[in-house]
């Protein structure tokens, strides 16, 4: 029984983290049809900014609880700067080109940002461990979990629900859905597609940076973390169906639970488990769990 509780709880926590790192990627693909490899770098920038600014905050003796707000602010600032710079400065010139070209462009941005990170922060790791233990912990099934894990879970639920609500219930969300469905027709109907793309990419960048900021207290922030993350985020997005928000949520949950079960019951399958899920799903549904049937344009 204790094992089962641990499997479920660990799976849920890992799934929350996966969803947080993947949601920005799937949002950008869903709207813009861009597989944004630079998402990994935005994650890294968020982690570095949170570690630097949060570390500054804590080292200067300000109230430790304020470090969460500082980390959040760091992610928002990264998104507000990097998102518009990448979208206005580069991507908007590429719209309409083949998806592969856009993948290569974002991969180039990823490489540039990886070096930018080294240039600004160097290669030594940054630590901001305090926020991880600051909220205390809870005991369940003879195990101790930091409450920070609950924060991750709440953040994932909040992001998922609020994005779903915006997409389904607001005017902007409906305009977004129209752009997703048919870019040319939306433009003909008076929707400023460029503006929708700009806002979507900025929000996606912010979500990527937020993933990094929320992860920073649990890891040593150092060069290379973006590359590891983009692979996982990509796996989740592919399993869920490229561009599908509920798909990403379900995929994160599936991967989280399968990996957790593997670690607890068959640790030797840990490495393989994520890709096993991916392979099985893609065999059954080649376009992912929540793939959308696309109308063929004549």
């Amino acid at each position, binding site marked *: 029984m204790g094992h089962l509780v641990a499997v479920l709880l660990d799976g849920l926590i890992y799934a929350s983290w996966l969803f947080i790192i993947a949601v920005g990627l799937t949002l950008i693909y869903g709207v813009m049809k861009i597989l944004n490899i630079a998402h990994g770098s935005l994650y890294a920038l968020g982690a570095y900014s949170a570690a630097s600014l949060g570390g500054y905050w804590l080292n200067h003796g300000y109230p430790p609880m304020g470090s969460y707000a500082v980390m959040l602010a760091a992610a928002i600032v990264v998104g507000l700067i990097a998102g518009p710079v990448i979208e206005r400065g580069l991507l908007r010139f590429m719209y309409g080109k083949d998806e592969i070209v856009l993948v290569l462009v974002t991969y180039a941005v990823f490489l540039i940002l990886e070096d930018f990170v080294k240039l600004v922060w160097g290669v030594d790791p940054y630590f901001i*461990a305090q926020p991880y233990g600051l909220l205390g912990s809870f005991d369940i099934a003879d195990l101790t979990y930091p409450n920070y894990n609950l924060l991750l879970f709440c953040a994932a639920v909040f992001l998922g629900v609020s994005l779903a609500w915006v997409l389904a219930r607001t005017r902007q969300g409906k305009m977004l859905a129209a752009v997703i469905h048919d870019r040319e027709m939306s433009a003909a109907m008076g929707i400023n597609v460029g503006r929708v793309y700009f806002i979507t990419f900025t929000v996606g960048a912010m979500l990527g940076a937020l993933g990094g900021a929320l992860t920073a207290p649990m890891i040593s922030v*150092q060069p*290379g973390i973006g590359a590891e993350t983009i692979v996982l985020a990509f796996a989740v997005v592919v399993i869920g169906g490229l561009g599908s928000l509920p798909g990403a949520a379900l995929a994160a949950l599936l991967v989280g639970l399968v990996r957790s079960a593997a670690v607890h019951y068959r640790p030797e399958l840990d490495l393989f488990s994520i890709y096993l899920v991916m392979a099985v799903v893609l065999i059954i549904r080649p376009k992912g769990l929540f793939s959308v049937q696309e109308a063929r344009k004549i």
Partner: protein
Amino acid sequence: MNKNWKSLTVTMLTALLSGISIGCDAQDKPIRIGLVTFLSGPAAGPFGVPAKLAAEAIVDSLNAGKAPAPYAAKGFGGTPLELVVIDEAGGATKQVAELRNLVERQDVDFVIGYIGSGDCLAVAPVAEELKKITVLFDCGTPRVFEDASYKYVFRTRPHATMDAVAGAMYLLENRPGMKSYGGINQNYAYGQDSWADFTAVMATLKPEAVITTSQMPKFGAGQYGPEISSLLQSNSDVIHSSLWGGDLEAFMLQAAPRNLFARSQLILVAGEPYLHRLPGSIPDGTIIGARGASGVYAQKSPLNDWLRQIYKERADIYPNYPAYSVAQAFLGLKTAYEKAKALGTTGTDDIIKVFEYETFESPSGKVMMKLGKGHQAVAGTAYGTTRTVNGQITVGNIKYYPVERVQPPEGIKSIDWIKAGMKPGKW
């Protein structure tokens, strides 16, 4: 006649000046050494960058002739050294290409490098094909020379078997009543070897001890929640780990708030480089290894004082064990080069001949090239236990283990030697 004299004089002067010029070039042409170490990625901070800083400090000091005896000659035998530094990040395939570049385009005379065991296994056959002396300075897997034989490849640092052997000995000397143990190691060559060696040593020294769980997260996993839960639920008396780099740091940051170390004794066989990097996350009582009497375990000697001083001047902190590893590589190669030069030649084959079975002094003590047909170093090692003194983490209860107790003799694989009871060899 006058014209002829003029012509002859000009010719002689030209020849003389050319000769002088050629002589100067030959004299001043530095020995180019390709240094391959992690400059980015998770291994850069604790391993790659300290190794690079140490290499630069060592090269400057050797070129200035400021190293203590027996290394007082400038550079290598009077010829200055020049470093060509390459980033080890990017995986084994990239490193194979980088090695070819170093040899064929950068025209280096020697290569010193490689921290990752996977990289060492990949580049060794290529170094052999390129016929370039390549000194592996830090990687741990014993497979390099136990599964193959090389002419041009040397490793001046002992392989990782001693981590497991001395670690288990130290553990049982200090926790004789332990009954169970689990492990968390990276799922690649070094992590798997380390766990296999440790379990084999424990099966020999304490066969009644029970293995509770073996966690093998992928290299660079970053998230260890389920693994920590599994280790907690295993209620192991001891947890063995060869995690290193960012993986170790992330694991410690995530495990400490979950009270894992209050439940289990932790042994970090490659933990020494992290002592000052993880404030508050390495609990007192953690058993720490450094694969050799390196870093905090290095004993006082003129060579150790020299390395500590030149490294401190460059990095503003004292060197950790990767810095000692790279020092062993430079000093081992310098010894071989100068001995070959003293015999009248510095051809590759001649250097190899004196490098094989060479013995040389290092900041960590005496190093003997006794395994792998004279290509693999052996040395003693040390273990200790962390304790906090005046707010600073340090190690105490240090015990040194001589080479014959922790390394197999020539001609037997490590795992077979362990299973056969680890009979001390003659050195």
